[in-house]
């Protein structure tokens, strides 16, 4: 006869050779390889402090005839730890979904059971085919005062565990990030970038449940983000970009009134329009001022003062340097 046997990591396992007597002469194999007699106590196989590598097919043969007397598939694993459960409504007001996972693997098969209670009512959370470990529920009523209680139980041959989440309808609303984020330079505007995006496709009714958006952008060379919050519309023009610098831009969404912000969208990169060919002096002066400050309104004035054709003799240069010093002193205030 053959069957499966589950044991905990670190346990001591004693395997009997079926119905054979203790003092019978037997040979044990593990995955086809003979096991040394030192592991035997009579005809019993003793495995102390088992580890994962000892999982496998164990067979016991009668000494002289080599008849197969017993076979077992040993699976070493752990009972489940408390599972991690998350519930979220990314398609309000249609419903919500819950997804779960185990914080550490058990190495043996687990089964999950999820229950959803709303007040006194039991609701069915329909399991998704893909991804696994996820189920969804449709709201029957909207604007409920009673909380939802979701209990997830995980069971395997070595034990069980569970976790519970209790929440209000409004608390779990979190849209998916905006889609199709596009950022383009604006012709003849060296400080502008036009950003546009779309509502996440999972949000079913943006007319009645409008989203608001949060845009963040920064030049790649700086760490600090600029932020803009937009209460409607799916586009925005950045008007204070540093000329010639590549920008990274992201957008997030939130229901206008309830819930939390989505994750940030996929980042897009864009560089404002520049005139061809670039002036080298302009480049150098911009680099100088951007490294001196993180404030956004620093760059152009210095450039203009020093760049115009009248840089002749030390007088004009003194004006240049003075302007630079004033700007540098001003920018120190903002560091």
């Amino acid at each position, binding site marked *: 006869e053959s069957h499966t046997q589950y044991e905990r990591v670190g346990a001591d396992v004693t395997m009997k050779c079926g119905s054979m007597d203790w003092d019978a002469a037997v040979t044990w194999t593990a995955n086809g390889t003979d096991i040394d007699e030192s592991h035997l106590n009579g005809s019993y196989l003793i495995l102390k402090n088992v580890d994962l590598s000892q999982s496998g097919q164990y067979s016991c043969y009668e000494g002289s005839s080599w008849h197969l007397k017993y076979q077992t598939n040993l699976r070493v694993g752990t009972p489940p730890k408390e599972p991690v459960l998350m519930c979220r409504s990314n398609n309000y007001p249609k419903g919500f979904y819950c997804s779960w996972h185990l914080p550490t693997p058990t190495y043996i098969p687990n089964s999950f059971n999820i229950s959803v209670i709303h007040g006194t009512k039991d609701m069915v959370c329909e399991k998704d085919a893909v991804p696994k470990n996820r189920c969804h529920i449709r*709201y029957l009523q*909207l604007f409920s*005062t009673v909380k939802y209680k979701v209990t997830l139980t995980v069971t395997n041959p070595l034990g069980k565990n569970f976790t519970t989440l209790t929440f209000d309808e409004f608390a779990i609303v979190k849209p998916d990030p905006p889609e199709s984020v596009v950022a383009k330079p604006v012709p003849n505007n060296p400080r502008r970038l036009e950003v546009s995006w779309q509502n996440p496709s999972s949000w079913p009714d943006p007319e009645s449940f409008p989203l608001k958006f949060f845009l963040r952008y920064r030049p790649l060379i700086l760490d600090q983000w600029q932020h803009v919050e937009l209460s409607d519309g799916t586009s925005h023009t950045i008007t204070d970009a540093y000329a010639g610098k590549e920008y990274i831009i992201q957008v997030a969404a939130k229901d206008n009134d309830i819930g939390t912000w989505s994750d940030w969208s996929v980042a897009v990169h864009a560089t404002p329009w520049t005139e061809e060919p670039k002036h080298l002096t302009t480049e150098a002066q911009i680099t100088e001022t951007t490294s001196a400050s993180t404030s956004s309104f620093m760059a152009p004035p210095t450039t203009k003062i020093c760049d115009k054709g009248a840089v002749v003799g030390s007088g004009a240069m003194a004006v240049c340097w003075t302007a630079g010093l004033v700007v540098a002193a001003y920018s120190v205030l903002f560091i």
Partner: protein
Amino acid sequence: SPTGDSWGIFTFLCAALCNLPALPALNCSEELGAGQSIQQTYDLTRYLEHQLRTLAGTYLNYLGPPFNEPDFNPPRLVRAEPRVPSATVDLDLWRGLTDNARLAANYRAYSRLLCYLRLLDGQVGTAELRHRLAHFCASLQGLVLSIGGVMSSLGYPLPAGPAAPPAGPPGAPAAPNDFLKKMDDFWLLKELQTWLWRSAKDFNRLKKKVPPAVVTLRLEARGF
């Protein structure tokens, strides 16, 4: 400061509206589209929702455990006559509400919620709590007025309601003991919170649907 403004509003409102429901033609200083009034009403619900968070926290602490525990999730006791109007509604039904029905539901709900909140006022412990409640009631009265204003400007009749705050909750039996009375208070605050969340959505829908050309009278309500 909120104190000065709220007492000013309170006095003004009390003087103007002892017995409801018809809106007097006050302060016709400007004419605005109904769209603007809806926006103002929407803004008011957001302000009240924010105010309620602080008020509810303070009041539930006054009620004490288990009411102030974040996990407190009691079953809803079914009363013969539901004490406060519930915001809960079937999704398709909510979507299909006419503008009139949508506004009327809000108007009725807040009128009654205001009545019950006022009943709390005389019973609560600290002066600070009484002050917060009074401030909130004044703002809530402003919301009722604002909704009434939108309805009138769109030509809808105001729903009939209690002419004056009732002596006791109409129809519903008084709670038999202290704990159940506290439960009533708990659910009152919960329903109020849910209504404010729902109203934001109601007024979003109304914003989209009301034609901007409708002209209305605007009440001069100072700095809510």
